[in-house]
């Protein structure tokens, strides 16, 4: 794949006329020219799809729901103004993300798992012609069961279908006869009838044996890509593609919270109230610690400080807030001398005047709090005991608590936070939590909506 900065139009990836399948198998990198902007943009679009699929899986969505999710995501994100370019976008974005996700074992595992899932559900949505085209492309030796054969086997096929609550076979349906070794999944779960070494596979089961081929090919390809990346590409492309590739794997893809927006400002008067009702656990913990200890170390100051900025706390208010707390510990003079500068720096009023953006969940989860630190993601770092206590304080019911703990234990920290949100507010958060400021603004919206519908007002609490 050649990447150019020109405005040239990319040509079609397919030289041959065989375009029966809408689902590429990504066997070989496309031989076309890609604009640098497209390189990044296509990858970001696909990454969004993959991330949302990952969320869906971790939330335990059922196959039907996943099918719908995949379909919606694909339509929403993988479009292209030119219909003929849709498939190129598909292929290019896949190969770009291979570069991004080939680099460590963990990244490879994630990418393999999600791309396989994506393939599985896209496959389900396709016609049997496409299925057959793919089987042929993969070199799977299948035969279509003839009517005569079918009649002879109908009883047994019906028995199998009934045993796994599948639709009953009909004479106008399609069955494939494949060597049993090709479909180990189906054999292991006794979902097919086998006779003399052949398995009789229903149309809707075909995905079962295509998937392992797809997966094993991609798995090998990722290892090879990693080798090429480390030995050659990374260095070659260090001024062009490499920075893009390296940024993509940790990129945050949600709304920009560096400019506090519609929900207006956060006022000091409300801050305790808001902290109690609308802060995510990480910020709540930092906030409570600050109130109690009148101090936070650097990591905590950054995480909480930027969060409050994104929430709409103005610089003057921020200075007043931090001073009120810190002066109780270190005195007003020391605050002005040692800490005020840092706060102004966060707001872009000092130094190189960068207006720092509040940290996303991803960034927070990756941080490593040490002794005396209170930042980072509590779902990751808190012991189970502490987590239960903290969540209890937030008002999470004991039933939901177990689910949250489960997610935290299985390292799905953002999902744990999402479940917390849902438990606290009693409403669902389909998009999942990706950013503490998102948690805050969603919370505030929900609370506002409740306030309007029930006509109760917030009590003013100091």
């Amino acid at each position, binding site marked *: 794949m050649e990447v150019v900065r020109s405005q040239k139009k990319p040509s079609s990836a397919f030289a041959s006329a065989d375009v029966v399948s809408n689902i590429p198998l990504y066997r070989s990198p496309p031989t076309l020219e890609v604009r640098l902007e497209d390189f990044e943009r296509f990858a970001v679009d696909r990454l969004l799809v993959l991330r949302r699929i990952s969320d869906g899986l971790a939330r335990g969505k059922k196959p039907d729901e996943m099918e719908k999710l995949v379909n919606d995501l694909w339509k929403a994100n993988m479009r292209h103004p030119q219909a003929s370019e849709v498939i190129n976008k598909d292929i290019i974005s896949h190969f770009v993300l291979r570069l991004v996700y080939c680099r460590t074992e963990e990244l490879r595992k994630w990418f393999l798992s999600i791309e396989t899932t994506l393939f599985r559900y896209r496959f389900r949505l396709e016609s049997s012609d496409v299925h057959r085209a793919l089987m042929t492309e993969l070199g799977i030796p299948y035969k279509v069961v003839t009517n005569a054969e079918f009649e002879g086997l109908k009883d047994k096929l019906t028995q*199998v279908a*009934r045993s796994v609550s599948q639709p009953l076979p009909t004479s106008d349906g399609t069955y494939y006869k494949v060597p049993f070794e090709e479909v180990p999944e189906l054999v*292991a779960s006794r979902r097919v009838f086998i006779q003399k*070494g052949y398995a009789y596979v229903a149309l809707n089961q075909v995905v079962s044996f295509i998937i392992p081929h797809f997966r094993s090919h991609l798995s090998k390809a990722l290892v090879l890509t990693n080798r090429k990346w480390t030995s050659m590409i990374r260095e070659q492309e260090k001024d062009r593609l490499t920075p893009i590739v390296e940024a993509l794997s940790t990129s945050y893809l949600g709304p920009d919270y560096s400019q506090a927006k519609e929900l207006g400002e956060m006022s000091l008067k409300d801050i305790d109230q808001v902290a109690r009702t609308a802060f995510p656990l990480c910020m709540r913990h930092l906030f409570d610690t600050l109130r109690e200890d009148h101090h936070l170390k650097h990591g905590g100051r950054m995480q909480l400080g930027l969060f409050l900025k994104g929430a709409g706390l103005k610089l003057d208010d921020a200075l007043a807030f931090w001073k009120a707390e810190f002066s109780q510990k270190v005195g007003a003079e020391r605050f002005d001398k040692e800490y005020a500068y840092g706060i102004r720096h966060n707001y872009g009023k000092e130094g190189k005047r960068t207006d720092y953006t509040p940290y996303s969940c991803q960034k927070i989860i990756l941080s490593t709090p040490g002794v005396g630190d209170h930042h980072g993601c509590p779902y990751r770092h808190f012991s189970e005991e502490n987590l239960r206590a903290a969540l209890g304080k937030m008002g999470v019911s004991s039933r939901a608590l177990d689910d949250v703990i489960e997610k935290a234990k299985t390292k799905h920290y953002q999902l744990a936070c999402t479940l917390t949100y849902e438990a606290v507010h009693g409403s669902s958060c389909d998009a999942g939590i990706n950013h503490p400021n998102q948690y805050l603004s969603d919370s505030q919206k929900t609370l506002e909506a409740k306030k309007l519908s029930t006509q109760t007002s917030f009590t003013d609490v100091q």
Partner: protein
Amino acid sequence: MTKEEEQNGRDDMLIDDPEHQNAQLDAFPDGFNPNYLKVYYGRLFPHADMFKWMSYGNDGKHPACDQSYFGRREFSFTLDNDIYLRFQSFNSASELENGIKDKCPFKIDIGPVYSVDPSKRLAYAQSGDNIFTPVERELVFDIDISDYDDARYCCSGADVCLDCWPLMTIAVKVIDTALRDDFGFNHILWVYSGRRGVHCWVCDGKARRLNNEQRAAIADYFRLYKGNSNSKSKVSLLGPALHPFLVRSYVDVLRDFFEEKLLCSQQLLSDERYEKILEMIPDESITSELRGKWQDSRRPASGKDVNVVRWEQLKHLLQSGKQKAPGIRRCVEEIVFSFTYPRLDMEVSKHMNHLLKAPFCVHPKTGRVCVPINPAICDEFDPTNVPTLSKLLGEINTAGLQAEGDKVWDRTSMGKSIRYFRESFLQPLLKSCKEEIEGSHSVKVQQAKNSLNW
């Protein structure tokens, strides 16, 4: 040996005199020791047949034969004092025979055929890539009666008797039928493990080339127990219908065995034991009705076995038209399956590099030879009558003066087993291997020819 030499006799040869024959047989007390083994490996163990088997036709003269094949097979020897030698390999029949006679192993295990000679594996480890890897291995199964301890009351652990051995017999029937009819395999060898179970070796080329995932799939196809920490034998037959494989096993083998043999031989519904079966029925009203009937311990007037009568009552209640819940109707099958359905050791079958004891070894604890079992007449197999080392040695002595070198085995109780091994298993297998080798060779030749055609 001349007649004079025979008559003079050596110290260890007893006089061939009919009156003394019984005394001769008693002269070898039951047991297992290096001296007995030495004679066994010297006179009885079928070295040449094992070599032919493990070569799968590659010991022939055909140009397509792979001369390195046999040498890439792993054997492992367990010696006296539990010394364990892995990754042994041999390049010819005589090397194998000499190796065995020399080391006199208490146990011989057979491993896979590797990509390179296993004894040279370390030389290949340097390159980093996985060069040393299994490439062929029979599909194997191991069934052990000690896994059935909750289904039998007559014995436990390593003990076996004629009341519980039939559990092994039906396991053989169920699995053997499935391997042939469902999976299409033909070259299957069942072997008595020497004490308390059976092994199965599936030797078709297709089977030998299966990868671990495919082996696991076959093992899972056969698996029924959902391994609960509470009840290992909990069988869960969900779904409105059973898979044809399970139906066939039930109708052809398991049901009749349970009703006609196991119920009575294990007294499964006796007063002390029926509670366990009642626990498998998830309906209180039914179980209390049955309990009520059975606690009244009058013997049935008809003289029928109480277990049979009670089973009829149980079935009647569970399968009556009144019972709507599918879980209830299915209970009868579940009970039968949970007692009788084969229990395989999954781990043995799933991995290509799993070692398994070679047929015709002698079991150190029982002295019995691991003889083949003919699945077609497995009902007749009697584990308590399998030749032991001492019995065979007695027989050798009896035969001693008449028999010449190789054919000694034919004069002993081993004869039948070796003949079965050769005629019913080895010969058809080798014929098929030869066809395969010649066939793939001619395909290659044709391909080469085609590629030369412009």
